[in-house]
């Protein structure tokens, strides 16, 4: 079985843990990291099928991570879900021109996230984005 690989970046341990638990149960292959820097290193090493990232993280924010990916891997399309709160308008503006970026609002609903993932993977031929890793 070729499960979709998802990279999760969040500095809140509980949030990170519950997303990991949840999505593993949904059958995804999960890698969890604590900050943007670790996420970038992981992506450059082996790009996932999808990245789920928080905005406020130590060392590198979620927004900075997106911009860094755009800069280091130009022309490459990523599926990214940014966990944000309504109070933060900045991330949306900064990554507005990036294709493949979606947003999910806090407080996080796992059901919404799972539904969102199912929809993304169902409509997209993204499988195999990691084939050139």
């Amino acid at each position: 079985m070729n499960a979709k690989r998802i990279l999760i970046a969040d500095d809140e341990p509980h949030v990170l843990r519950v997303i990991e638990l949840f999505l593993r149960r949904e059958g995804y292959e999960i890698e969890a990291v604590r900050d943007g820097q670790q996420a970038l290193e992981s992506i450059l090493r082996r790009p996932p099928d999808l990245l789920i990232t928080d905005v406020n993280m130590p060392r590198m924010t979620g927004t900075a991570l997106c911009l860094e990916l755009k800069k280091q891997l130009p022309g490459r399309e990523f599926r990214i879900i940014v966990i944000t709160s309504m109070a933060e308008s900045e991330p949306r503006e900064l990554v507005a021109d990036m294709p493949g970026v979606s947003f999910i609002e806090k407080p996080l609903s796992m059901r919404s996230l799972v539904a969102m993932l199912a929809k993304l993977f169902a409509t997209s031929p993204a499988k195999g984005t990691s084939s050139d890793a």
Partner: protein
Amino acid sequence: MKNGRLGLLLIAVSILVISLMVWLLHAHQLRVHRDQVRILGVTLVRALSGAALAQLVPESGGSSLLNTLISVQRSDAYAYGVVLTKSGTKVFENVAPGSIVPAADIPPADPSAWFGEHTLTSPGDDREIREFFGPVLQRGELAGFVRVGFYARPQSALLGSDTPYASAMALLVLLFTTLPYLLFRRELRPLFQITSRLSEIEQSYGGLTTDVLPGGGMRDFMQRFDQFTQVMQTKVRDQEEQRLAAQTTSQLLAYKQKKMDAIFDAIPEALLVIDESSTPSYANLKIESLLGVSRKEVIGISPQQWCSNKEVLALLIRLRSHGGPVLNACSLVYVPEEHSDRKISAVAYPLSSPNAQTKMQGMLIVFRDISEEQQARQAGVEFVAHVAHELKTPLSGISAYSELLFDYAGLDEKTRVTAVNAIHEEAVHAAALINNLLNISKLETGALSIHTKRVNMSDLLREAAENMRTNAAARNVSLVLDIAPDLSSAKLDKDMIRIAIDNLLGNAFKYSNPGGTVTLRAENLDDLQMKISVRDQGIGISPEDCAKVFDKYYRSGDNEVATRSGHGLGLFLVKQIVEMHYGTISVSSELGKWTEFTIQFHTQTQELDASATA
């Protein structure tokens, strides 16, 4: 008028004197004339009496002695000469032209009465005639009489011989009367003018009762002058009193003005009053700090000359371009060119005329520096956003774990325990945040008070540390406890101190990097002082931020800080709690390496309680 009367009087006196002189001269001339007439008459009659009748009445072709003597005498007063017979028959006469011989009785026979004189009246013109008569003898016998008449009064009133003398006298009299008068008049003219002027002044003051003295002159002047000086004295005294009153009022007004100025200068706002032409008539001291121009550069000077800001200038000259009816208050907020970090609000209030409420007489413009207000408002807005964000993070955990428990009935025990613990911890985290908010709210309203009791500090610190263990493990941060074995107890509010310690530890973990260490250290400095410190090996704080970390809502602009959740209230609350225990808190740090917060307070708080309630 009085001057004129004096002149008339002098002229009348002069005429009288001259008339008297003329009368005396006339009388003198009359007396002289009569004397001359008598001498002439008597002499002529004596001479004729001695002559023979034939000499008096010559034969035809001869000349009478009478004619001869009369022609020799040649007197203007001569009227006639007549020779009569004893019986009174006229035998010869010599009559001056225009004269008529009056009738007269023949003297009596007594020889003593043959010579004599008497006064007759000329029948032609009623002139008085003095007639002299004497006998004409013929060989010792009375042969007739001779009568010679002379006019008793001269033909003219005054004789021409005395006219130059009389004229000279009259001239002298006139000179001695009119000349002094003219001189007197000339010298007195200024006096009369002054009197007239005084009269006008008195009338102009009104109510002055100055009766014009009959005759006027010096007495009138003196009386007027006296009254004038009295009036002037009264006026000067009144003026002096008024001047003193005005001076006192002026000083009082100046004092009040200074007092009002001091009040207006103490107001934090800058005040500017402009008149209908938009020219400032008043400005307080603050105008300098807010508008950058001194009062001297503003008052009485058109705004175009000192106001460089176009928006403010438009506000100031709005009145002039508007004119007339009262404008509504209007305001603007602007950023001064020279201080781009400041915001100033200008509100213009109309000043309506006291006489006509619908008409404007100027505007009061109040300038206020609203930079801090705006910053505070901005900080408040950001704070709400932060708090909302902060609450959403634990809620996300709770929500996600709840869904996990709900949706997956067949979870293994370990995962279920993890989920339940996580929900609990996130709930505690949210509650702690809410507690912080509530405590700060209480602090600000003065509702927060401390209730001290003896607390085992070692236990309190260990509990706090234990509570953080999960957090520490999750963040991969070690927690080291360095509590002195002999640490004393302290009298303080246990719950409050726990909030402070929790906040310090929470911050230390939050700003630590994975793999770092947080050290909680406590020791007694002496019998009375205790020191508690929390040190991390995290991102550190810059010296500029160190000075502000205890300010309410303050969050560093540092990128590293921005990436970590926070609401800028924790350290503010810690400081308030420490200070309520009469303690101190300090921070030291090296950016990028470590941070250490140190609390120091008294352990024996009885005295502090006493002083606190004193």
